[in-house]
């Protein structure tokens, strides 16, 4: 039973078709990678899955539920979280507060209860802080917890986005180029982190340019080219696929 199912998805911006007739399904418990040359439509696909863009055609099912027309915050509530290619860290907060926002769906005090700081709020605050620290520890960021986000280097902020997404305890995590801009050591750490996320029971959908990383950790790889599905299968088959090689290296 697939966790995520995409059927006949299509998105055009004016005359440009960014995604054309795309269908695939992501089984639960996998690291499922999407690769493709620049402009293949990978980030567009992520934005469609989270309904930041509205699809022109087609439908998306998560856990058998149609999420095509749901607003992003409701999609998040069903158990999908994501990180962003261009960082979207809350720079006006410190590290632990960033991750506490990730716990939004696992807590419930509203504006008025918060304003009057009812006893339930005090108990919840402590619980939320612990949950956030747990997510920070998982990502190896506990040391930075009281630092303002704006003071941290890029590599740490990338991990912070992952911690924030994990704090919402998603079933599916979309990661948009998590290794971009990281050095070799950081990329190795990231590899282990993504595997640890999968092992904790979260399905990972990964967009990534670093082929070494993708081939090492993925169970399934999907290749996009000009918004179309070019091939899908286990990494070994993809590496040998002549069409994929042509798309990446150019036809000889």
């Amino acid at each position, binding site marked *: 039973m697939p966790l995520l199912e995409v059927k006949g998805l299509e998105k055009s911006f004016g005359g440009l078709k960014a995604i054309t007739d795309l269908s695939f399904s992501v089984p639960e418990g996998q690291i499922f990678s999407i690769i493709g040359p620049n402009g293949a439509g990978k980030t567009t696909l992520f934005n469609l899955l989270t309904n930041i863009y509205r699809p022109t055609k087609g439908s998306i099912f998560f856990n058998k539920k149609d999420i095509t027309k749901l607003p992003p*915050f409701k999609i998040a509530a069903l158990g999908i979280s994501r990180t962003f290619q261009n960082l979207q860290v809350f*720079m006006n907060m410190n590290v632990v507060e960033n991750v506490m926002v990730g716990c939004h769906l696992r807590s419930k005090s509203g504006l008025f209860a918060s304003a*009057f700081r009812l006893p339930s709020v005090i108990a919840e605050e402590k619980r939320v802080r612990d949950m956030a620290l747990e997510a920070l520890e998982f990502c190896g960021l506990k040391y930075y917890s009281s630092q303002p986000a704006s003071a941290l280097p890029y590599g740490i902020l990338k991990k912070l986005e992952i911690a924030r997404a994990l704090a919402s305890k998603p079933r599916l995590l979309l990661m948009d180029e998590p290794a971009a801009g990281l050095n070799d050591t950081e990329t190795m750490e990231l590899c282990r982190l993504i595997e640890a996320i999968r092992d904790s029971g979260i399905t990972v959908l990964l967009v990534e340019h670093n082929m070494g990383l993708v081939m090492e950790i993925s169970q399934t790889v999907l290749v996009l080219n000009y918004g179309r599905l070019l091939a899908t299968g286990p990494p070994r088959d993809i590496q040998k696929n002549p069409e994929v090689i042509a798309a990446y290296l150019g036809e000889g």
Partner: protein
Amino acid sequence: MKRLLGFYIFSFITLVLPILFPDNYYVTVVGLTVLINISLAVSLNLLMGYAGQISLGHAAFFGLGAYSSAIFTIKYGFSPWTAITFGLLIVFLLSYILSRPILKLKGHYLAMATLGLGIIVHIFFVQADEITGGPDGISGLPTLSIFGFPIDTDLKWYFVFALFMLITVLLSLNIADSRAGRALSAVHGSEIAAQMMGIDTAKVKSRIFVFSALIACIAGSLFAHQQNFVSPESFSFFFSIELVTMVVLGGLGSTFGAVVGAFILSILPELLIVFEDFEVLIFGAILMVIMIFLPEGLFVAIKNKIAYLAFKRYQKEVANATS
């Protein structure tokens, strides 16, 4: 206890001042303006500083509260508290209905829309003279009583304003340090990321807009009763701008930043009177110097510096412990 330490010290100073100096002009006259401005700046900061949504029309809600009190007590003979309730109802409905369409806008467009709101309400105060008394305003509001205790001297008003201001500050501090406050800051930081964390950003923005309008409305009612008089010029576009300046001067996104900003901007003109003709010039120069050298705002700049030093010390301790 530690979380609210600053608040307790601040409350203590606020409440002790009039006891020590009951006849001081700066306490019982200028002090009243300072207190009401702090309440307004703190309420505006919830919307502007935390949620990052600019409003150039905050004075409109302040004015609606004041005029509701004046109109319903004098023209229709309701008791002051009934009039305040009507005011709250009107402002609630108006801000709630306007919030969703207005807060869909961002940046300059939101500034324009809220500016328009402020100007329309002001025009209503000036032009609808059968209801509002036109440019002359309305005078002769009845005395406000709290639990049968009439508020009839400046000193008593000081305590009423101080109490209202302290409640506003406390609510704001509570919100900042809670799930709701973090949702506001998240909307400010990145609306897209906030939505992906499950925050209904439209609802969050609308709620805080209404909340901050209601605080301004109560401040307006109290102000009208204390002044015994309302006229349009207290609620003009310029006052909205002044409130924005207070919030920015002290530091966006900090409750005590708004307090400091409101305090300076209310007290500075009084202190600069000695310079006579140069008053406005020096006032402007001081604001410019603060913003050039401390662009994050006076209070926030100092707070950040302290936090930075504390982290440096922590880093050193960790380094010493591991070596």
